């Protein structure tokens, strides 16, 4: 077995220093399918929060929790399928598996965060993977948001089964995604880049009956 040395991992900032044009995973969808305007009649509204920082943490809960508290100021969610947030709600950590968590932070923070977490974790056994380019987050709000989700996922989205603060990886139409409920009225969907267009078209189709609008 190899020993953990200072160079055991490759820490890599995938973001440019220069001004380089970037495109969210939904850029093509907006171009081809468009964005139906939000109107008074819209009973569901969709909004992308593009270019966020997404990190996967792997390792033991106790060790990671300590490091995360030290660096981010709030801890890992203790229970399966739950989320924690910082006070402003901008940074979140979601349980994905007994040894896997998803950290989402404002875009650009992920590289520094990864470095600080690695520093805090020292020679503990863990892994951190930057997946920011591979996924995007969309929010769905509105009185019919829950019914739209019922058309799409077999997971029970009734408030009794899906309280605020829950997050699950599940089936959505014929794709998979992460479904979270950070607030009473708000749902978050974390889509994989390559499936984003399919999911977007599905949501618009399912939402047509509710005059869904997409915020630009």
């Amino acid at each position, binding site marked *: 077995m190899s020993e953990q040395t200072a160079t055991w991992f490759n820490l890599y900032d995938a973001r440019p220093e220069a001004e380089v044009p970037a495109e969210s995973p939904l850029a093509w969808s907006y171009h081809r399918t468009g964005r139906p305007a939000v109107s008074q009649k819209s009973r569901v509204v969709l909004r992308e929060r593009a270019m966020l920082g997404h990190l*996967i943490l792997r390792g033991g809960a106790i060790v990671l929790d300590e490091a995360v508290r030290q660096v981010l100021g709030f801890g890992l969610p203790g229970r399966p399928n739950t989320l924690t947030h910082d006070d402003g709600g901008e940074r979140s950590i979601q349980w994905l598996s007994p040894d896997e968590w998803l950290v989402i932070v404002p875009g650009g923070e992920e590289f520094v965060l990864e470095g600080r977490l690695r520093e805090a974790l020292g020679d503990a056994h863990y*892994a951190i*993977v930057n997946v920011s380019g591979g996924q995007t987050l969309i929010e769905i709000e509105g009185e019919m948001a829950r019914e739209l989700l019922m058309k799409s996922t077999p997971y029970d989205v009734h408030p009794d089964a899906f309280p605020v603060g829950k997050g699950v990886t599940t089936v959505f139409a014929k794709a998979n995604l992460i479904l979270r409920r950070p607030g009473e009225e708000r749902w978050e969907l974390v889509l994989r880049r390559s499936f984003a267009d399919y999911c977007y078209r599905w949501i618009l189709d399912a939402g047509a009956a509710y005059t869904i609008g997409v915020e630009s």
Partner: protein
Amino acid sequence: MSQSLNQPNRLNEGGRIDRSRRLTFTFNGKRYQGHAGDTLASALLANGVDIVNRSFKYSRPRGIVAAGAEEPNALVQLGSSEAAQVPNVRATQQALFDGLVARSTNGWPNVQRDAMSLVGKLGGRFMPPGFYYKTFMAPASMWMTYEKFIRKGAGLGRSPMERDPDSYDHLNQHCDLLVIGAGPAGLAAALTAARGGARVILCDEQEELGGSLLDSRELLDHQPAAQWVQRVVEELAGLDNVTLLPRTTANGYHDHHFVTLHERRTEHLGETAPLVDGVRPSRSRMHRVRAGQVLLATGAHERPLVYAGNDVPGNLLAGAVSTYIRRYGVVSGDRLVLSTSNDHAYRAALDWDDAGREVVAIVDARQAPDGELVEQARARGIRIIEGTAVIEAKGSSRVSGARVATIDAQAFKVTGQAETLPCDTIASSGGYSPVIHLASHTGARPTWNDEILGFVPSLLKGVHAAGSARGIHDLAEGLADGVAKACEALAALGRTAQAIELPQVDARREGKACALYQVPHEKPTLRAPKQFVDLQNDVTAAAIELATREGFESIEHVKRYTAMGFGTDQGKLGNINGMAIAARCLNKSIPEVGTTVFRPNYTPVTFGAIAGRHCRDLFDPERYTALHQWHVENGAEFEDVGQWKRPWYFPQVRPDAVNGERESMAEAVARECLAVREKVGILDASTLGKIDIQGPDAREFLARIYTNKWEKLAVGKCRYGLMCRDDGMLMDDGTTSCLGENHFLMTTTTGGAAGVMEWLELWHQTEWPELDVTFTSVTDHWATMTVTGPEARKLLAEITDIDLARDSFKFMDWREGRVADMPARVFRISFTGELAYEINVQANYALHVWKTLFKHGEKYGLTPYGTETMHVLRAEKGFIIAGQDSDGSVTPEDLGMQWAVGYDKPYSWVGKRALSRSDTRRTDRKQLVGLRPKDPSVVLEEGAQIVFDPDHAIPMPMVGHVTSSYYSPTLKSGFALAVLKGGHSRMGETVYLPMADGKTHAAEIVSPIFVDPKGERQHV
């Protein structure tokens, strides 16, 4: 088109229809009127339409028999336009709307005058069960032709040939208790559970909730039962924890209380869904319900009696006669004879009498019936003939009389002289069969109950039945049963519910029913006029008797031989009678004969509802890379690789084009291939699976899962690896790069990505949990662009700060740096055999890098290429594609890749042991070789079989097949990869490929490496 606007059979008052709203509809080209609240069936009866269809096999005229889902005859084809066609709709379940257009499903040229009926008239003896099998048996090759003719004659409805303008959808539902059926037991149960706070779904297939209470003679709390229904439904509708679904049929009961409900949302409003607020709602919807507990309150179907001529229009179920009168204000004739074995059916005679029409007689099979309803009929002076039954209905297109005789049901004999009673309607009742279909879907075999003369459902854990569905036909008991079962169901979920207060029902004394299924005739069954058991599939009592005589003893075999209970019918009316007849012929009891298995769907479901929104553009996910838009805008043709859309080739406008014609695929691929071999090409390789591997045991893990060695791979280096299953067969391949001492980036094939990821986890979690390593998919995070060809270095050098010098950045190295101002990892890996750089950048920035490459690439002739060119180039180099050149039966040794096998690695890696099995050591295994057609213009077919001796008699021994084959513009020849028995030791020999068109191609066995055999070009 003639008009018939008066409705001769419509009563002036009564029923739940709205006489102020007249609706016009068309049936078989003729216009009629009905009312809001009618079904198509009640409207047809109101208009005196006797013949609604022709029968399936004998083409006999048929009329409406029932009032619900069990209707076997009135199957219609709906739709005024081609796009709106809907087949196999039961007229009894179709709400009438203005402008409805329906046709009979069977009958050509029309139901009144049917060409096929000649067969039916001649028929009888000529069409015994198995007729089609026996008659159209030989030659077997003609069956397809016969079948077309038979199907056209039989008619099963037809699907629309134009695009359906409507949309359909699915809704995933979850509940504590699903109550199926909103009759008395279902309503009582739903209310109990709902008041207990449980999440409840209540569905019912009818237009209105209420079931039998909507046409009951009985009073609840001294008021018409329908008033109680209204109060309960109103309360339920007001509760947040309740979902009410009328017009919703529970069609399938699947595993673990997963039930599919088909809701017809707009079928009662029109042919296509009407716009609501500018939006067109889905026409029908499949609710995919996962229930904690399920209560079946599905009621019971009345069983008709089986007597001669019982299929002539005018023969109805007794209950249906009542329902049409009481719910729709329609009396289906003038003179009624009722044939019954029980008290309940007397309602039909009383209702008929109330409607002011003549009850000719009640023919009761029992000796001294004395129940309360019997007394009421006597008191009205209705003639009751005891110990008798209708043994034969007279008439052809409508009943004209009933032959009645005393019978001995036990001895199956007619014991007296028959008397003919003139009448136009015969109502019959042999009792009630609980609707056990859904319980049967779960695999639980129903059990026979002698008390109620019917099968009652067996129930798996979590399934409950209440009321008539389990043989409790008494109203008061049924209501109480609903409450009790709801409490039981909730208790099973750890919840409590209070029993609700039930309405008062006046107790009524009911006489005992007798067992009567097939009524005896003076002639033996085989010679008597046809006695129908299954009207929809035209199965007669004689057919069942014949089947048992021919040796079919199992009821499942009888069913398949006679077609009893097949198809859309699912044995609703006929099954019990059929079993009783089989039992009599076999000298067994009904429980000994047993029942057949009912299967989903309970009634037909439109394909639209099954597909939901998973159709057209949304049929299957399409995965796109970050560069997809560029590919589209640059004219790429796409190839499906798994769910990915990958550019296949980029046809350009031909140099000699007059009207902008584009290159053919062959032309485009030839141009792209030469560009890579001579200048530089670029491929979007983002779809390759990419897995980030970290942990102190990562290297050890790789050594165990790959066939080759990993201990010495240094940071900055890449290595190609083969992955086998433990049976030694190749499953995937790819390169893995060392990013840090304990940090690797693995690539997989595009199609294998998810499978490899799961494979790694399988071994880690189940066999080697002690290894400290993690796997994370980064496929979507990175976009990968392959720049390859002799000019690749010069091009890349223009936009990168990485030192590309041959000796500092070698083949199979990787480097970090900037490419087009973007942080990038560049890998010197080649799948073309040319100098190649795979550039990985964060996907959100990929388009910028790609465009920058083109900005600088024009002077080098940078050419985008697709998967087809990639395939040609790699095949020229003998590089395999796992899953194309290997198929799960090919070892690394078969592929001649011993160089990638670490025979002396300390750990017995996955697949190693299998390589020393006797089977994998065989010398005649199929091995990878190259094939060079003798005629260079020939491109062999992929999949073509190889033989050594083309003159061998057929069947020739097949010794291998072509796995990859292309035309090589570099070689100016076709060439192929193939697997061939003992191929490695047959270099230079000639093999043959006989093709379907009679041609035989000859090819020479050569090395699979066709271009640059020493591999010098990729090292430049």
